[in-house]
């Protein structure tokens, strides 16, 4: 238990540092974990379980953001964004990773590093006062689409090829049951949600479902995000899930950092190449999306520069893969891109304007 106590104290200190500076909190938690691990702090079974809760609550929370109806309404526009984002970002990361790692590991690395950090990006849009601009809407939809593709990755990551049909069937049955349950009891649930005392424990209990269905072979991560989607009609649930997510996710980051073994088995050149591909890939994707959707490269530069930071989802995919090489590469890249991304996001709009001016000047 002492490890959890120490972790909580360190994380509060880290958060205070993050508040006072423009540095995002996510890389700091991970760095704190790495440092603590090297100083001899050991993770216990309790901390492992709490980290697991962090993943589950993050995914429930993400699921709650995914509202199928809004997707269908905007499907034409969104499909374009999603496809461009996936291909333009994923390809260069995969191409570079394959040069240094096994194909299987390279694919997981590319999958992990393709997804931007919604948390960092959303925070920067609010803090940098950018929500009035239409580019911000595109960026936010991009984040949600990446979450949807994350579901596909989670599915692929957990499915063993031989058992894929059996697995798919289980997932479909589970999804149907959860959706049906949520729809049937929607009215009843909404009424209950007015009782605050009841609500906290009920919100917490949602986390029990993924843990339970893990017993029948449906991975918790997939189960959690599907639960979130099933309940996305009830707006107020999010408010109650958030505190749990905030607390446990921080512990997850910290203990993930703790589990990283820094050993000299990866060439620094490989890491630098992956970082460059990760930054360039997303920037290019943003540029193309801006060009297509807003008809201007300036918008593209703005979108690209805003979405460079990687964070929670990359770490999540790396943690679920459990491969040491993947974990290390992704961790280093997340730390680098989240710091680079914090700066580029701040000057994204100015950079876009600069491009526009030069074009007019020509």
């Amino acid at each position: 238990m002492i490890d959890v106590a120490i972790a909580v104290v360190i994380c509060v200190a880290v958060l205070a540092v993050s508040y006072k500076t423009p540095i995002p909190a996510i890389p700091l938690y991970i760095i704190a974990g790495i440092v603590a691990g090297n100083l001899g702090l050991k993770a216990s079974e309790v901390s492992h379980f709490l980290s697991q809760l962090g993943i589950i609550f993050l995914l429930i929370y993400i699921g709650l953001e995914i509202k199928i109806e809004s997707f269908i309404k905007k499907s034409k526009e969104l499909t374009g964004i999603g496809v461009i984002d996936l291909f333009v970002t994923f390809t260069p990361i995969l191409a570079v990773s394959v040069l240094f790692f096994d194909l299987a590991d390279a694919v997981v690395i590319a999958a992990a590093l393709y997804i931007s950090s919604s948390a960092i990006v959303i925070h920067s849009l609010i803090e940098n006062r950018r929500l009035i601009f239409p580019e911000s809407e595109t960026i936010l939809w991009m984040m949600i689409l990446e979450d949807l593709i994350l579901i596909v990755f989670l599915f692929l990551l957990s499915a063993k090829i031989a058992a894929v049909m059996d697995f798919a069937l289980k997932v479909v049955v589970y999804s149907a049951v959860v959706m049906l349950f949520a729809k049937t009891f929607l009215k009843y649930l909404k009424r209950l949600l007015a009782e605050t005392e009841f609500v906290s424990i009920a919100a917490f209990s949602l986390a029990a479902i993924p843990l339970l269905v893990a017993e029948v072979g449906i991975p918790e991560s997939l189960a959690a995000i599907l639960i979130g989607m099933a309940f996305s009609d009830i707006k107020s649930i999010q408010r109650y899930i958030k505190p749990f997510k905030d607390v446990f996710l921080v512990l997850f980051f910290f203990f993930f950092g703790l589990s990283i073994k820094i050993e000299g088995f990866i060439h620094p050149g490989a890491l630098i190449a992956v970082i460059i591909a990760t930054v360039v890939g997303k920037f290019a994707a943003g540029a193309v999306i801006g060009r297509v959707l807003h008809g201007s490269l300036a918008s593209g530069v703005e979108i690209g520069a805003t979405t460079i930071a990687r964070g929670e989802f990359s770490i999540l995919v790396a943690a679920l893969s459990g491969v040491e090489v993947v974990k290390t590469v992704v961790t280093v890249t997340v730390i680098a891109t989240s710091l680079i991304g914090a700066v580029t996001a701040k000057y994204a709009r100015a950079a876009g304007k600069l491009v526009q001016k030069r074009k007019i000047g020509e």
Partner: protein
Amino acid sequence: MSIELPGVGSKYEIETAQGDKVAIVFLESGEIHLYVLEKGCDSPCVVVLSESEARRLGSILSGTVFHIEKELVEIVFTALSDLRISVHTYVVNKAMAGKSIEELAIRKRTGVTVIAVSRKGKNVVNPPPSFRFEDGDVIVVIGEHDQISKFEREILGIR
């Protein structure tokens, strides 16, 4: 029309005839951000409002508060699917003075209910239908927004 900002909340935008832009963003955290972007300018000014501050600003903009004797309080019961009741105060004018609630048929004609009257420092709560208004009485009425407007038009004869 509100614009969905997934992961953030929702946004309402207005572009004025001069080309200035105003956007109101309702964050999921409950904060309300009011963006003002002057035409030709690229860095917006942002005011962060609490829910009650936003409501006050809204009342001022919609013209419901113009002087001190005429006050609007909106009561929201969040537990009752966001039931909103507007409570207004008015000063009795010539059009009402000397008549009773029954004669004016306030509820029948407008739907609003007079719940209290303040006369020379004394209050009457739930005045009976026979209650006769005097010039200078301050009355408190409740009703929905539309009913209040109707009351102002038909009973007070303003607007």
